[in-house]
């Protein structure tokens, strides 16, 4: 009938019989939409009003069959959106009714947000509504979430302040509310998630974190605050050399040109000549509305400019820092709760996050102990926790390195399972990853453009995808790992300065013909220990 274009009331009648029994039939809803659209043109306003009224009534009867039917709620949205004078008050009432029956019906919540937005319901009223539902049953993600949308609207921050955050008095009230929830029932996740949102900060602003220029490699490297894609011949990234634009081809260190934190380009010899006392390189990130400049002095091999990781902005993005007294008191109540509920994983995790937000180095030892407990009570998420712990440890090591103002990073004996923040290690020359539980050197490692010595002994490394295009890598030590096939060493061929390679204690050493293969693959490496 649809194909034949027979879109009239009989279709409405037929589809209503099926949808009335089972409203989850998207095709039929589409049919009805087509019919209604057609009838809109044909009918008089009075007839249409009657039609809409029946349709609304029909939708309600469908919702009674299945209050969580995607198609029905969507159809209602569509219908209300087309009405010249929709009765929003009635729709709000409908939502209130459905939420009374099931306060966690997220379909209805969704519709309520739609209605509230259309009817321009004051956020304060909606907030009071969430209050009433939370009072009834606080295990309600939708309600908490709605608060997280409404509160910033109700309490807009001055332009200078971080967006999406709350003034301290409001924050404290919300914290008290949510604490009531997790002290009442610490196993309820919804409250913990809201708690994390309350203490969290807004998304960090877009920024260029680091700019590095190397005379030797005739190359400029940029590190971004978030993964980006710099397409060829686009205006995403502009390079100004000595204040004049220079057209360059951007690529990622691993050569795959996927969205990433680090992009680099080759520089023409003219931009690097020694005639001027210095060259300035300015990179403008148009989309991120950010730029950075670095200077290469005459006689220097390299020049750089970067944000310091010691700046709190960088790592403490899980939780906000501006309210450290608030965080401190939150930490105390969580510790109190943890004493009562030593096995509560949400509480343990929140303690760890709070400690990191407060002072990652001061609390390092304590944090590691909490990780141990957490792993014991939540063995299902052991791998996730190991990765999280690795991330935090790496961040701490990075902070320590920067405080020491060196380019050597020791990450040995830390039980690391994963490497992250590698884009922050752009300037590192010596990296020690020995005695960890790493299974790979990931592609992101290719961002370490200054790396000269890499030690990764005694891990469980099986692949070396990240050891690629490292222009300065001279020594690579991979003793006692799980390298099976000589083939996995293929990426090393792209590192032009590699002279020392130690592969002792890997399975591939037992294989026949490994030495020959390596000699052929890496002719420039003069010392290969197998």
């Amino acid at each position, binding site marked *: 009938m649809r194909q034949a274009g027979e879109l009239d009331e009989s279709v409405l009648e037929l589809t209503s019989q099926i949808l009335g029994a089972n409203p989850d039939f998207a095709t039929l809803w589409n049919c009805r939409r087509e019919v209604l659209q057609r009838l809109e043109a044909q009918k008089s306003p009075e007839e249409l009003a009657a039609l809409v009224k029946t349709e609304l009534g029909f939708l309600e009867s469908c919702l009674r069959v299945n209050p969580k039917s995607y198609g029905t709620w969507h159809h209602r949205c569509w219908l209300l959106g087309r009405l010249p004078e929709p009765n929003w008050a009635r729709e709000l*009432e*409908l939502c209130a009714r*459905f939420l009374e029956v099931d306060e966690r019906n997220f379909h209805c919540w969704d519709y309520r947000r739609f209605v509230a937005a259309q009817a321009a319901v004051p956020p304060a009223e909606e907030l009071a509504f969430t209050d009433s539902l939370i009072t009834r049953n*606080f295990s309600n993600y939708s309600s908490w979430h709605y608060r997280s949308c409404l509160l910033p609207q109700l309490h807009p921050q001055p332009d200078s302040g971080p967006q999406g955050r709350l003034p301290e008095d409001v924050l404290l009230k919300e914290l008290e509310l949510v604490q009531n929830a997790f002290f*009442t*029932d610490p196993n309820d996740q919804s409250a913990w998630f809201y708690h994390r949102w309350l203490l969290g900060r807004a998304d960090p602003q877009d920024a260029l974190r680091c700019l590095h220029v190397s005379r030797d490699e005739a190359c400029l490297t940029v590190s971004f605050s978030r993964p980006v894609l710099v397409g060829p011949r686009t205006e995403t990234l502009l390079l100004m050399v000595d204040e004049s634009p220079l057209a360059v081809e951007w690529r990622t260190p691993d050569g795959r040109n996927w969205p990433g934190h680090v992009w680099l380009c080759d520089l023409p010899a003219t931009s690097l000549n020694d005639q001027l006392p210095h060259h300035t390189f300015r990179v403008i990130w148009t989309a991120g509305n950010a730029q950075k400049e670095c200077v290469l002095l005459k006689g220097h091999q390299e020049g750089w400019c970067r944000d310091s990781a010691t700046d709190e902005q960088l790592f403490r993005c899980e939780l906000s820092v501006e309210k450290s007294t608030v965080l401190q008191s939150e930490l105390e109540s969580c510790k*109190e709760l943890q004493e009562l509920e030593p096995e509560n994983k949400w509480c343990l995790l929140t303690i760890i996050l709070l400690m990191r937000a407060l002072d990652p180095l001061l609390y390092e030892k304590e944090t590691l102990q909490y990780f141990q407990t957490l792993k014991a009570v939540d063995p299902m998420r052991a791998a996730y926790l190991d990765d999280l712990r690795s991330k935090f440890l790496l961040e701490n090591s990075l902070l320590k390195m920067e405080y020491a103002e060196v380019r050597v990073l020791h990450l040995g004996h830390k039980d690391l399972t994963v490497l992250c923040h590698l884009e922050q290690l752009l300037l590192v020359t010596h990296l020690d990853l020995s005695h960890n539980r790493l299974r790979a050197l990931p592609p992101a490692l290719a961002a370490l453009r200054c790396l000269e010595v890499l030690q990764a002994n005694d891990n469980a490394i099986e692949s070396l995808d990240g050891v690629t295009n490292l222009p300065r890598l001279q020594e690579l030590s991979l003793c006692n790992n799980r390298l099976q096939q000589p083939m996995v060493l293929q990426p090393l061929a792209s590192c032009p300065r590699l002279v020392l390679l130690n592969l002792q204690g890997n399975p591939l050493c037992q294989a026949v013909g490994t030495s020959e293969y390596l000699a052929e693959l890496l002719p420039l490496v003069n010392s290969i220990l197998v």
Partner: protein
Amino acid sequence: MADSLPTEFDVVIIGTGLPESILAAACSRSGQRVLHLDSRSYYGGNWASFSFSGLLSWLKEHQQNGDNAEESTASWQGLVHETEEAIALRKKDETIEHIEVFCYASQDMDDNIEEISALQKNPSSVTSKPLDSVCLSEETNSLHVTSSETPAKDTPKSDEEISLEVTDVEDILAEEKYCGDKTCINTASGGDKDENKPIEEDNTDQPKRNRITYSQIVKEGRRFNIDLVSKLLYSQGLLIDLLIKSNVSRYAEFKNVTRILAFREGKVEQVPCSRADVFNSKELTMVEKRILMKFLTFCLDYEQHPDQYQAFVHCSFSDYLKTKKLTPNLQHFVLHSIAMTESSCTTLDGLKATKNFLRCLGRFGNTPFLFPLYGQGEIPQCFCRMCAVFGGIYCLRHKVQCLIVDKESGRCKAIIDHLDQRINAKYFIVEDSYLSEETCSNVQYKQISRAVLITDQSILKKADSDQQISILIVPPMESGTCAVRVTELCSSTMTCMKDTYLVHLTCSSSKTAREDLESVVKKLFTPYTETEIDKEELTKPRLLWALYFNMRDSSGISRSSYNGLPSNVYVCSGPDCGLGNEHAVKQAETLFQEIFPNEDFCPPPPNPEDIIFDGDDKQPEALGTNNIIMAKPDSSEENKNPESPENHHQN
């Protein structure tokens, strides 16, 4: 009038208290011919509820002791045959003692009082519901099926009801208003209720305090439904289950008790008992919230964690609570307000009581209790109505003089009523208070101390306290005395007039009711006086009127304590002291199973649409296992017994 009742029945039941009424419904429902008698002019016996004037005449009746002392016994002795002997029944109710009435409200005499005293002359009107309406249940429709107040989560109806609530968005707004009103105003359409209760007078403009006088109470007396026993229904209790199962619930409406209160350090405070309460409580610290929730969660399935209490089974519950890190206020809440036990109760009993409380939470609302609108006295009447629907015959003000026992078989075969009519039956069920002193000479009765107060404010004033129903347990003041249970009813329960509260106090007696309860009354209330200005005293609600009395507690008496009762005479006890109605339901069910071991106890009635009226008087086949005998209306009986609501069918 009832001089020619039918003379052949299967079961004769004497007394219309709760257990007797349940039994009547069960017997009638299973097809027995039931005659249900009460010597009083109202339903319920000591389970009854009275309007204010009704209560006054009840008091009067019980205060004039030994008035109509000796009637001659000769009239019926001639009716006893050679082969028979008679067991005389008691002539006068002696279950109520030590009545004391205090009126604190100003008694400015005006004509209103005259007006009401006229009513007292007609004892039949003192019941909250005239008898004849019982048989008209379908027409008058005065009692609605449980409404939005009881969204019966676990009942079979629930789904239907929930979906119904969402039904017509068209009507949402209108309906909303309707529901809102419903909580405070009797919207029961038609029916005797409205007849009994004239339209509320416009007294809203009155200043809140100081203005309620005794004459107003008398004038508005019909707004009161004062229970002789103060009980509540546990949401998962036997009575609720029975009401739902038997569909008797359709005859009653309930409200959720809204607050559980505690009395600690001279102050009344609200007890957080559900998860939402704990979350919302402003009084508890965070850590207390956790400790309380943890303990309550444990209690819900304490059997699964014997390690947590095994070492303490020989300790008292209060000592056990001390070991659970509960702060003193939490200990008090759990011990007195949640478990509602005495301090001496054992750990195991305490845990059991706590669990029972917690199981009942959330079924109909945020507390475990329901209260029937119009008072507890409604409940026995609902069962009587059920009995009448299935053909039971009712006679109030119908005294029974004696039971006739066949000497040879030792079984009771008949009764002789006050009109000297002999009525034969197979089984006889008698409420304890009808048994003669001789029969009960070996019985040791306990006593219940009761107080009924009319006050002007809630014991815990909050913004919405005029809509609250509260229960409060006041722990014993000194060792050796009992905890006192206080139930405060607001006017929306349809048990008291606007701007007043009806407060019931109950404990098991050690002395007279006033001696037992007065100290608690003094702690919670202050007597109303015209001139009082003491600021501190003003914080307490004021007493307008108070009544104390002792009621006999005949529960828990072994049948063997009664002398010389034939085996087919069964005894029901009067109200017990407990909060729930479990004792009455259990007793009714046990007796029913004893009498009819193969019959189902109060099965759901058939859907009226499924009933086939068969001209040949056969059992309707469609009903299958439901063993119902739809007695045919007997026109002769109907005409002769205007007082007995007999044989009315469901359709």
